[in-house]
């Protein structure tokens, strides 16, 4: 069993260490990821869709047309890419005329798209392989008190994401628990991290992440787990920014879900690129005696 890997832009070109841990986890679980030539930007549902819906649909359809369901369809490490690719499918299938128009343009570059490519988030694939993960754990994450941040686009709009519950999600909490960690509830668990408004209002964006981090600190959690590179930058990079700009030091390490799974599966920590995190997880490892 395997999938076509859709990498997108942010992870491979800015946060490649997140790609490294994700690929290693899939390899360890024996789930094949096929690299496909010729993908473009998904395009960004919080960027390009907002300035040109037609372009968003057209480039999205072109990307989807490059994958085959016989290869397992697409899997992506990024919630934004998943939202776009599922959304484009939804809108093309909802309105025949739009699909025809998009295909008219695709034809001029020798392409076409039927609207049927399957798309999955990598966390969905992990959830579907929970037993395999359980069997392969060598380093349970004892002492990790994890604040799970689902992120908006992993869940909503449920109309076309069609995965987990939009307001009472459970998949990532369950994965984290299987790893031996504790999932800590916190008041602002379902709130947006604020990343998409950074382009329009940096101050507002920082306020949103500050409130989230405060809520996480108040809950007693000692780290964050998330599944989206935009959320990752907001939680990790802008946590550093808050420290520089406002002198607030939360010092809460932020893990990609793949990193936590990799640690629990005993994948060599040195191969994960954890040193690229702005908030270093080293002191957490010492506190919980994670060897």
């Amino acid at each position, binding site marked *: 069993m395997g999938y076509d890997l859709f990498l997108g832009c942010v992870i491979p070109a800015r946060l490649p260490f997140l790609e490294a841990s994700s690929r290693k986890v899939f390899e360890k679980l024996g789930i094949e990821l096929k690299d496909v030539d010729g993908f473009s930007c998904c395009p*960004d549902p919080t*960027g390009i869709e907002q300035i*040109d819906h037609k372009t968003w649909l057209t480039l999205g359809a072109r990307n989807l047309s490059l994958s085959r369901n016989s290869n397992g369809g697409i899997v992506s490490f990024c919630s934004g890419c998943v939202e776009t690719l599922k959304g484009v499918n939804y809108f093309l299938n909802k309105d025949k005329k739009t699909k025809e128009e998009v295909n008219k343009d695709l034809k001029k570059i020798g392409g076409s798209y039927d609207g049927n490519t399957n798309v999955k988030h990598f966390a969905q694939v992990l959830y579907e392989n929970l037993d395999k993960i359980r069997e392969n754990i060598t380093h349970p994450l004892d002492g990790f008190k994890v604040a799970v941040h689902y992120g908006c686009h992993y869940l909503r709009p449920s109309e076309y994401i069609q995965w987990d519950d939009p307001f009472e999600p459970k998949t990532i909490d369950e994965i984290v628990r299987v790893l031996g960690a504790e999932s800590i509830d916190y008041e602002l668990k379902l709130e947006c991290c604020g990343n998409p408004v950074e382009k329009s209002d940096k101050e507002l964006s920082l306020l949103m992440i500050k409130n989230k981090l405060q809520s996480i600190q108040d809950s007693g959690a000692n780290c964050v787990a998330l599944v989206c590179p935009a959320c990752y930058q907001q939680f990790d990079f802008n946590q550093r920014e808050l420290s520089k700009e406002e002198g607030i030091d939360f010092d809460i390490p932020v893990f990609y879900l793949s990193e936590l799974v990799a640690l629990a599966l005993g994948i060599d920590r040195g191969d994960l690129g954890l040193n690229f995190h702005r908030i270093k997880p080293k002191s957490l490892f010492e506190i919980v005696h994670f060897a």
Partner: protein
Amino acid sequence: MSVVNFEFRNEVLKHNASLSYCYQCSTCSGGCPVALLTDGKYNPRKIIEEAILGFQEKLVDEQDPNVWLCSTCQTCVELCPQNVELTEIFSLIKNRCFENGNYPEGFFSQGQAIIENGVAIPYSNAILNRRKKLGLPDVKTASVDEIRKLLKLTQFENNIKKRGG
């Protein structure tokens, strides 16, 4: 006094017919994190009301409320008892702002990057080295010519150029 602009209203309706279901209950604004943090200055119900009335000037020129402040968290869409697809309606409004050259800088640079590279973030040498060190394979992204051709067909390139891109 403003009069209803049926032309703009119909344009929004054509893009997303769910606009007509709104009965102004304000559930969307009640659940909106940005409305909460801006003391209601940002207000999704109000944007929908203005769209129903076709108030193009308010929405596109004055940007009152400022539709760019939506974080696209999709909470309102999920909560709306009438299944109004608010974020899809907002995206039409923002698309019109884009055509008028009236949008935050960050969107422009992302658009330009895609025209030039086919991807939103080009691969720097530092990143290529880092990828190698992490044992990651080379990525063969889309042909820039092919993407450019599509961006010409959708008028995207023209709209970016209008801003001096």
